[in-house]
């Protein structure tokens, strides 16, 4: 399953919170594409993923638009 999350124009930690809340409803192997504009998300979402055991598969920059692809795991760190 692939889900898209619109977190544009939100400042951190809101993109992280929205990511965290979306991941709760996903299964291991699912992918979440987080669209955001706060450059802080480039650091914060990968950090959140590392401490919670999820995997960042891609970070795509297009001007001010950032898309971070998160692969959900079973959360065991």
């Amino acid at each position, binding site marked *: 399953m692939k889900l898209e999350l619109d977190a*544009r*124009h939100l*400042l*951190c*930690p*809101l993109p*992280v*919170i929205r990511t*965290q*809340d979306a991941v709760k409803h996903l299964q291991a192997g699912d992918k979440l594409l987080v669209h955001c*504009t*706060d*450059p*802080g998300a*480039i*650091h*914060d979402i990968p*950090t*959140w993923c*590392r*401490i*919670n055991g999820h995997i960042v598969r891609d970070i795509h920059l297009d001007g*001010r638009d950032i898309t971070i692809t998160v692969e959900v795991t079973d959360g065991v*760190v």
Partner: protein
Amino acid sequence: MSGKRKAVALISGGLDSMLAAKVMLEQGIQVEGINFFTGFCVEGHTHAIRKQDSAKPKRNNALWVAEQLGIKLHIIDVIEEYKDVVLNPKHGYGANLNPCLDCKIFMVHKAQEWIKENGFDFIITGEVVGQRPMSQRKDTMPVVARESGAEDRLVRPLCGKKLPATLPEREGWIERDWLYDFSGRSRKPQMALAEKYGFTDYAQPAGGCCFLTDVQYSVKLADLWKSRGERRYELDDIMLLKVGRHLRPRPHFKLIIGREEGENNFLEGYRKQFVHLRALNLDGPLALLDGVANDADIELAARLVCRFGKGRDAEEVEVVVTDKQGATRVLNVAPLTADAIPQEWYV
């Protein structure tokens, strides 16, 4: 002890909560972090917005601390619930609109609810007796424990030796002898403990993690309430108070004027919610108009916006005014001179 005891640590991203969690980890406690997002957290927002600050680190310090400690972090959105703390603080405000004691009670209460839901045993905070004038005094720290409902499941490892024994100490889950007796506003004991643990990179503990402690921010928030005739706010309101110049030329409207490219970009995200103005064919700020404005007000707003752009010295500047539906019109206006802008317009 039956099994590994579990505690949740309130992680602000500052040094004290980082140390408090570490002290408990050293005692073999399983620690996870919790961080509450109220909307007023400083957390590098201005760095994230302002292009001139782009070289500064944009990391979220709470997440960074959690990673350094090797613990999970739960970031909880409490924006809606927190409004009551800001609007109706039982214990009042500090020097500005900071309801520090009510805030601490609220957060410990939320942590207490969280440990009940998640099967944890106690709560850790980085509080130090005498460090803060409202929430961290010898007489108010028991108030936090009592009114939050945490009671003796609230452990303050950095000053625990100065406080009555908590349940985890009495039950032998943690050793009281391994707690600390820090007190007062000196940062030296914390810095020495940080050095002991090998923490060399941590957020500077300036006490400024909340915009409500900032005098200018509080003035803007009070102005917002006064202009609306009621004390209420939404998340967008309090985010916008962090950005740009705020000028109120008339009681019924104000302008939020970007100060640089990063702020203009941020304000662009709000274009559909506000009438907005920008000079045509000239470098200059984007301005949002908050409130109700008639044609004369909009002309005044346009003249004011020009003052902060490249056309400030021109005889006439074309300004594009866009309404909330996206309809545009162009006004030809003379920029206001600096001395035509009364200081009291600046919020």
